[in-house]
C-alpha cells in the first residue's frame, strides 16, 4: 500500500466532519448571522430567569404603559417600557423566547417523528400502502394550516398544548412527503441491495440502512418548520386560541396589545419585532443548512 495512513480517532473524525460542514456553511453570510441570532435566542431562553431584570408577571401599578427608556417619560429600570398592566416588556419578551423555542421544538419533534414513520412506510412498501397513506396526507394538506389548527383547538379547547398538537398534525405531511421521496430514491441504491445480500430484514433495512441517508432534507425542513411553528403559534395566540394570558408568549402579547397601536407603540411593535427577527434568523440558518448539506452543491 503506497498511501500514508493518518491515525484518526473517533473524535478526530467527528471534528473533521464538523470542519467540512462549517467550511460550506460559512460561505453563506446570512446563514451565519442567522445562526448567531438563533444561538442568542437559545441563550436568552435558557437563562431567562437570570437575564430578565424583572418577573414577567409582576405588575407595577405605578408604571402603567411606560415608554422605552430613550423616550420622554421612560424609566431606566424598564428598558423597553411596560404594558397596560405595568409588566416589564423586556422581561416578558425574554421569557417569550422560552415559549417560542419550546413550541418550536415540541411541534417539530412530533411532526418529525410521525412524518418520518409514515413516510418510511409509504416509500418502502409502495403499492396500496403508499396510496392510502399519501391520500390521507393529501387530505390534511388540503386544509389551510391555521384553519385546521383552529378547528382542532376549538374541539379540544384553547391552550398551548392543544395548539402545539394541532400545528404538529398539520406539519406532518410535509415531513412524510420528504421522507417518502428520499426513501424511494435511496431504496434502489446498491448499498441497500448489499444489505439485503447480507441478510437484512425489512425493519433493519428501513430504519438502520435507509433512514440515516434521508436525513439531510429532513433537517432543512425541520428548521423551516420551526420558524413556521413560531409564527403559527403566535397567530393562534393572537386569536386567543393558543397560550392564554398571562403567559408572555409573543403572539399572546400581540393580542393583548391591539388597542394600543397608536397610544403605546412599544407594546405592539416589540413582540412583533421579536417574532420577525426569530423567524428571519431561523429561515436564514435553514437556507445555509440546505446549501451545506446538499452534496450536489459541493464545488471542489
Amino acid at each position, binding site marked *: *500500500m503506497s*498511501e500514508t*495512513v493518518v*491515525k*484518526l*480517532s*473517533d473524535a478526530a*473524525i467527528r471534528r473533521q466532519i464538523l470542519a467540512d460542514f462549517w467550511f460550506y456553511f460559512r460561505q453563506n453570510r446570512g446563514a451565519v448571522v442567522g445562526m448567531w441570532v438563533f444561538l442568542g435566542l437559545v441563550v436568552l431562553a435558557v437563562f431567562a430567569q437570570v437575564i430578565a431584570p424583572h418577573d414577567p408577571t409582576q405588575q407595577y401599578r405605578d408604571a402603567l404603559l411606560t415608554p422605552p427608556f430613550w423616550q420622554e417619560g421612560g424609566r431606566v429600570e424598564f428598558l423597553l417600557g411596560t404594558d397596560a398592566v405595568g409588566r416589564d416588556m423586556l422581561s416578558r419578551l425574554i421569557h417569550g423566547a422560552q415559549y417560542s423555542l419550546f413550541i418550536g421544538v415540541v411541534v417539530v419533534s412530533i411532526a418529525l417523528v410521525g412524518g418520518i414513520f409514515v413516510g418510511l412506510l409509504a416509500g418502502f412498501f409502495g403499492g396500496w400502502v403508499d396510496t392510502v397513506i399519501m391520500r390521507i396526507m393529501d387530505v390534511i394538506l388540503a386544509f389551510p394550516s391555521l384553519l385546521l389548527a383552529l378547528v382542532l383547538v376549538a374541539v379540544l379547547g384553547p391552550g398551548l398544548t392543544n395548539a402545539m398538537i394541532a400545528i404538529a398534525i398539520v406539519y406532518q405531511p410535509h415531513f412524510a412527503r420528504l421522507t417518502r421521496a428520499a426513501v424511494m430514491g435511496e431504496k434502489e*441504491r*446498491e*448499498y441497500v*441491495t*448489499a*444489505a*439485503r*445480500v*447480507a*441478510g*437484512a*430484514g425489512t425493519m*433493519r433495512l428501513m430504519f438502520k*440502512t435507509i433512514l*440515516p*441517508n434521508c436525513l439531510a432534507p429532513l433537517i432543512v425542513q425541520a428548521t423551516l418548520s420551526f420558524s413556521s411553528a413560531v409564527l403559527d403559534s403566535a397567530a393562534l395566540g393572537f386569536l386567543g386560541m393558543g397560550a392564554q394570558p398571562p403567559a408572555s408568549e409573543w403572539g399572546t402579547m400581540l393580542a393583548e396589545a391591539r388597542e394600543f397601536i397608536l397610544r403605546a407603540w412599544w407594546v405592539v411593535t416589540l413582540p412583533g419585532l421579536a417574532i420577525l427577527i426569530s423567524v428571519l434568523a431561523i429561515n436564514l440558518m435553514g437556507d445555509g443548512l440546505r446549501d451545506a448539506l446538499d452534496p450536489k452543491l459541493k464545488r471542489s
Partner: protein
Amino acid sequence: MTLVIEGKALTQDYHVSAGMFAASKTVRAVRGVDFAVERGKTLAIVGESGSGKSTLARIIALIDAPSGGVLKVDGQTVDIGRKRLTSDMRSKVQMVFQNPYGSLNPRQKVGDVLMEPLLINTPMPADERRDRAEAMLAKVGLIPEHFNRYPHMFSGGQRQRIAIARALMLNPALLVLDEPVSALDLSVQAQVLNLLADLQDEFNLTYVFISHDLSVVRYIADDVLVLSDGVAVEQGPREALFAKPQHAYTQQLFAATPVTSVAAIKARVERRQLARAALSP
C-alpha cells in the same frame, strides 16, 4: 467435481407498465440460460449493457427469484420466490457490486459494515464479531485504523476491498462479482485482481465474474459464458473460446476490443502516414 452452483433454463421477465390505460408489456431479460460452476473455479459472464448480465447476476446471488428455470446451490434447489432464504443458504452466496461509491452505506462505519452480516446471521457475541471483522480487514490489505472510518474517506480501490471483505465475512462458497474492477483505475484494478486471486486460493472460493472487458476476462476466467440479449450465445473453457470464437456476436466483441500490441500500433501508424502523404502532394 463438485458443482457449487448450477442453473438450468433460467428466465427473467420484467413487467413494464404502460400507464393506466394500456396493458403492461413483458420484457424478457434472461432467456433460458444454462450454466454450472465447479468449486474453486471462475466463470466469467461477458456481455454489454442490455445483455441481461446484471439480471442474471441478481438471480445467481439469490436476490431476485427467476421467472422460470431451476437454480441449485451445492446440490440443493433454491427458490426464493417460494420460501424465504435461511441464514445458512444466505451465507453460501455473497456478492460484490460494480460501483465502489454506491455499494457501501455512506452513514455506516467500515467496522459496522463488516460486522453487520455476522450480527444478522450468526449468534456470535460482539467481541468475536469485532475480532473477525478486524482480521478480514487485514486480509484485504487495510489496517485496524480504518475500522472506525466512513466510506467517503477511502479511495475507489479501498472501497472495493471493503466490499470484498464484507462479502467474505460469512465464509461463502460462491462469490458473485458484478464488474468489480470496471470503475477502477488500471493500477488499482491490478491490485484488486491480485487480491481476488489470492483470496480464491486461500479460501477455495468459487467466482462468478461479470465483465465487459475481455482482457480482464482472459486473465482471470476458467470458463466463459457470452451473453447477448438474454441468451447465452456461447460458452466454454477460456482458451478454446479465445482461440476460436464460434458465434458471430463473440467474434464481433473480439473485433471491437482495442489491441495494444506493438505490431498493431506499428501497422496503424504506417497506414495513417500513407493516408496523410496521399492527401498532401
